């Protein structure tokens, strides 16, 4: 039965293993995946511990609907206290790992302690083994997976692995599975490295049983039809998330040269169509009808031959616009490098772009960068710095610690140029013309990040009543406006918290399309797969509970209203180019503050962003930690 998934507790210091079924009450309160991970993080972690100490808890969770044949049900949620920000560490990845984990009988892994020597975990049909991994240490992410498959003589073993960046405790090291699916944000690979844990491999043949298999199958087919009929998914199937670039760059919504311009001039080579020069087709994650990533081959040039997957829109910014590199090939090479070393593409690009601006301003010089000429568009320097960060060599060692530690180390006013919130780099999107996005990255529980809410639905010129119906209240259709935007952020935060907890892909709910599966469809899928009756309203409340427990975690770690802020430049420097909707825009400090008030009010939090007692009671959070599992 799909509800019979177990949780395994693994202490790497004592090598003690234990397991139990996920209590039914946890399912009704938190569903699975991110929801249960967040609960565990709040319950199992002592406040104010060092994220790199053995006391940190690494959580791996498959979603409640993980494994069903629709909407990208292969998502896996990874959480721990973030070594990059000190706040919630949480990152979500696709691929094939989470369903394979479910086929072993486990839905959640709770990993504590630190192994004496490098180890990897092998989860195989009910059995968990801590295995020696000295032969894997030092190997890149791709080699590591290949060796594990060979060791097990089984091509169906799926692994979560770290590369050299994770081993070297780079604070934004990712965890990767397959050729590109990665939990990139908040440095979860660094936590794995700190535990001497090189990989987690899963292989299972246990049947996943559903409450109503035949009806579920038919409904899943309808869901796939529903999502693939949207224009967004059609475009994504063909071009991947890169398709976003065509619109945002033309409009002027992309930060370029770190934060100097909001459009990459002469950026034609980064248009998604150009991937066809290298692509051999697209690739899908487990159970996905959209298949949004390209399989690309570089046949010529100094880095050839090279096979990689992606790149995402994110990488077009990280190694393109932000560092002013204008060639698709540069993106493909850099994307491959970060995946191979196991680095978060976005954080890596964000930090390098920052360093380039500091170099231009004279805050950094050749002496500090060890001779690395960090000039805009210098792709060789880009590649070298990526490698230096992963290996903690030279100036890369400074950047490898992320903004929080690099800012005081570099000093000299460098903070002003850092485009980060809570210590995490922002995407390359420029939110000055879009207050909804600006509020979203400021309030995101894991630091500057678009995937906690991504309130993009006001960008398509939809009529006011459509927005009102979707969001349950008035939202201005003009995306430059501040009106109703807190409602958008609040609604999307809850939707994504639920999406991450049932283990489906965010692209296949309200991401760019109103006509995508959401509460009603999720409720029906849960009923058919598990037999649980959870109404739309209850799902919204679960989303609220998850987001609020994340808030409680951050408050406990010392974060508050002052951290729900934007970099100073958003308020001071207006955008310079682009279409009229994007030109000469900056965030109004007062109106931003008012949005924040409204946003807290919608969540039921007080003016300082602290959840009110009645809110906690309503969400059954007033007795946390409750130690249900």
């Amino acid at each position, binding site marked *: 039965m799909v509800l019979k998934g177990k949780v395994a507790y693994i202490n790497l210091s004592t090598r003690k293993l234990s397991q139990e079924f996920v209590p039914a009450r946890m399912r009704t309160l938190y569903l699975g995946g991110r929801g249960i991970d967040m609960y565990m993080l709040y319950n199992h972690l002592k406040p104010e511990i060092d994220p790199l100490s053995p006391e940190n808890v690494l959580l791996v969770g498959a979603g409640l609907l993980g494994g069903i044949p629709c909407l990208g049900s292969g998502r896996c949620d990874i959480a721990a206290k973030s070594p990059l920000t000190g706040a919630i560490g949480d990152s979500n990845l696709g691929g094939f790992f989470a369903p394979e984990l479910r086929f072993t009988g486990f839905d959640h892994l709770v990993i504590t302690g630190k192994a004496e020597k490098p180890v990897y975990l092998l989860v195989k049909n009910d059995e968990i083994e801590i295995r020696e991994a000295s032969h894997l240490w030092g190997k890149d992410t791709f080699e590591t997976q290949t060796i594990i498959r060979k060791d097990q003589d089984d091509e169906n073993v799926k692994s979560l692995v770290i590369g050299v960046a994770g081993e070297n405790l780079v604070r934004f090291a990712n965890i990767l599975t397959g050729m590109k699916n990665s939990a990139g944000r908040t440095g979860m690979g660094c936590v794995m490295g700190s535990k001497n844990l090189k990989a987690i491999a899963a292989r299972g043949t246990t049947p996943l049983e559903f409450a109503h298999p035949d009806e579920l199958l038919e409904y899943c087919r309808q869901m*796939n039809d529903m999502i693939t009929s949207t224009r967004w998914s059609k475009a994504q199937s063909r071009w991947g998330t890169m398709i976003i670039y065509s619109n945002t760059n033309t409009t002027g919504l992309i930060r370029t040269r770190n934060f100097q311009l909001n459009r990459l001039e002469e950026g034609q080579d980064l248009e998604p169509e150009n991937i066809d020069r290298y692509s051999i087709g697209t690739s899908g994650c487990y159970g996905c009808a959209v298949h949004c990533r390209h399989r690309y081959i570089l046949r010529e040039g100094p880095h050839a031959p090279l096979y990689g997957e992606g790149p995402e829109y994110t990488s077009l910014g990280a190694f393109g616009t932000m560092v002013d590199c204008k060639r698709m090939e540069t993106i493909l090479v850099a994307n491959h490098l970060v995946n191979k070393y196991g680095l978060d593409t976005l954080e890596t690009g964000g930090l390098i772009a920052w360093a380039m601006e500091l170099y231009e301003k004279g805050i950094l010089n050749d002496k500090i960068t060890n001779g690395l000429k960090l000039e805009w568009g210098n792709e060789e320097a880009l590649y070298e710095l990526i490698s230096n960060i992963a290996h903690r060599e030279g100036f890369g060692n400074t950047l490898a610690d992320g903004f929080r530690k690099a800012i005081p180390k570099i000093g000299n006013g460098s903070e002003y140029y850092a485009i980060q919130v809570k210590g995490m780099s922002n995407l390359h999107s420029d939110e000055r013309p879009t207050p909804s996005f600006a509020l979203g990255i400021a309030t995101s529980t894991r630091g500057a990040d678009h995937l906690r809410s991504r309130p993009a639905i006001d960008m398509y010129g939809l009529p006011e009543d459509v927005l009102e119906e979707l969001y349950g209240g008035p939202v201005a259709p003009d995306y430059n406006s501040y009106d109703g935007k807190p409602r958008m952020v609040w609604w999307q935060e809850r939707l994504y918290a639920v999406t991450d907890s049932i283990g489906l892909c965010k692209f296949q709910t309200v991401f760019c399309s109103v006509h995508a599966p959401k509460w009603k469809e999720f409720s029906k899928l849960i009923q058919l797969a598990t037999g649980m009756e959870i109404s739309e309203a209850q799902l919204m409340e679960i989303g609220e509970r998850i987001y609020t427990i994340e808030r409680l975690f951050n408050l406990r770690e010392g974060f508050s209203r002052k951290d729900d802020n934007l970099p100073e430049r958003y308020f001071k420097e207006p955008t310079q180019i682009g279409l009229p909707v994007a030109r000469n825009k900056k965030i109004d400090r007062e109106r931003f503050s008012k949005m924040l008030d409204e946003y807290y009010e919608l969540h039921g939090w007080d003016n300082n962003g602290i959840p009110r007692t009645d809110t906690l009671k309503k969400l059954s959070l007033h007795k946390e930690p409750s130690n249900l599992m």
Partner: protein
Amino acid sequence: MQKMLAIDPEKCTGCRLCEITCSIHNEKTCTPERSRIRVTKWENEGIYIPMVCQQCDVPICETVCPMHAVKRDTETQALVIDNELCVGCRLCVQFCPFGSIGVDDRTKKVIKCNLCNGEPVCVKFCEPAALQYVDANTLNTRKRRAAAEKFSDILKKTLARF
């Protein structure tokens, strides 16, 4: 003309919806291990090939079966296993050149694609149409047209000169 389950590996995106839906339809559980169709992958090179019974005209499985348990469905022309007769000797598993016959670890009998009695579920779910259930002659016509296009281009250019 008889329909066939045609595979176009170039279109396969490796999502495994075929495996998942096959097992849910036939086994009522999600167990790719017991799916009649499997996607074989070369992950580091991005090559994905769905493998399934080809319903051969001269079926080796039928030839080697000592119990005559492999029979042809007169409607769909699929080769189906008669579970009453199958003794689980697995000779068919050994001899199938495509590795498309599996063993059910619970019943110890063999399992293979029966074309879902003429409505293959995997085909319904295959978004990129790497799997198609088509008339064998249609398939042939399509491929012929695709190949002929190259010639037609040359011909058109040649004619345009006059």
